[in-house]
């Protein structure tokens, strides 16, 4: 077993969403939590927590703009799409979601980049 590097990563995004020349991605998966602290009879009291029942995920990916394929506005298809984030080979994280933010950066001294932020809806699957 060896540590993974990012050189075989990939993001694919169904529908009309832009996923050309992607060079990085992030995923942020949050688990809800509840504070169940009971005050101790004598201080101090250490907080205690219990896992919540709700999870959510968001993510981003960046790409170099393509000179022929125009970028799409956030959530252009206006439907939930499938986003697949590959770590390596068949090791992927996938779910449905929609793009909620599109950021464009044009710099005279560098490549032009585009950043998409998306929000997941429903289950996020860990595949291997």
């Amino acid at each position, binding site marked *: 077993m060896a540590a993974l590097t990012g050189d075989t990563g*990939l993001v694919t995004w169904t529908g009309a969403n832009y996923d050309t020349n*992607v060079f990085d991605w992030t995923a942020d998966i949050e688990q809800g939590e509840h504070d169940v602290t009971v005050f101790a009879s004598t201080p101090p009291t250490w907080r205690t927590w219990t896992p919540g029942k709700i999870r959510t995920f968001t993510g981003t990916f960046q790409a*170099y703009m393509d000179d022929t394929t125009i970028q799409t506005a956030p959530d252009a298809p206006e439907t939930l799409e499938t986003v697949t984030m590959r770590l390596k080979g068949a090791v992927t994280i996938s779910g449905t979601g929609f793009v909620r933010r599109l950021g464009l950066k044009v710099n005279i001294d560098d*490549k032009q980049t585009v950043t998409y932020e998306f929000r997941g809806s429903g289950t996020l699957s860990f595949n291997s």
Partner: protein
Amino acid sequence: MVIAAIDPILWSEAIITKWDASAALVAIVPDVWFDHAEQGATFPYCVFHEIDVVPDHIFGGASVENVRVQFSIFDDDGSHALISSAVAQLYLAFDSATLSLSDATRYTHMEMQRLSERPPRWAAENVWQADIDYRVRFFRTAS
């Protein structure tokens, strides 16, 4: 998978073609060489080198190859007027120039941008020397 950097032959040929296409530049500096000049070269002449190649990798195997190229122009005139004119013509010919590569299936030229200039100076061997650096970017498709 090991992917070699872009072959200098590819872009050096394109640079020489671009050079030869500029009548004003050729009128001052007719001879340009990649890497090293031939012995007994006639002044003024130009030699260009590959300083480095830095790839920006893209998922799936494609990349953007950032090549830093340095042009060095030499002249043995008593004045720096001629070499200064040559530098000015070099800018006209190569600033934001488009290079045509013989391997257009694998590589696409993206941009050519001037990075720095070391103005003409009286260098060793009693000749004028000017050094101009460009960054040339190529998009390489996944193999």
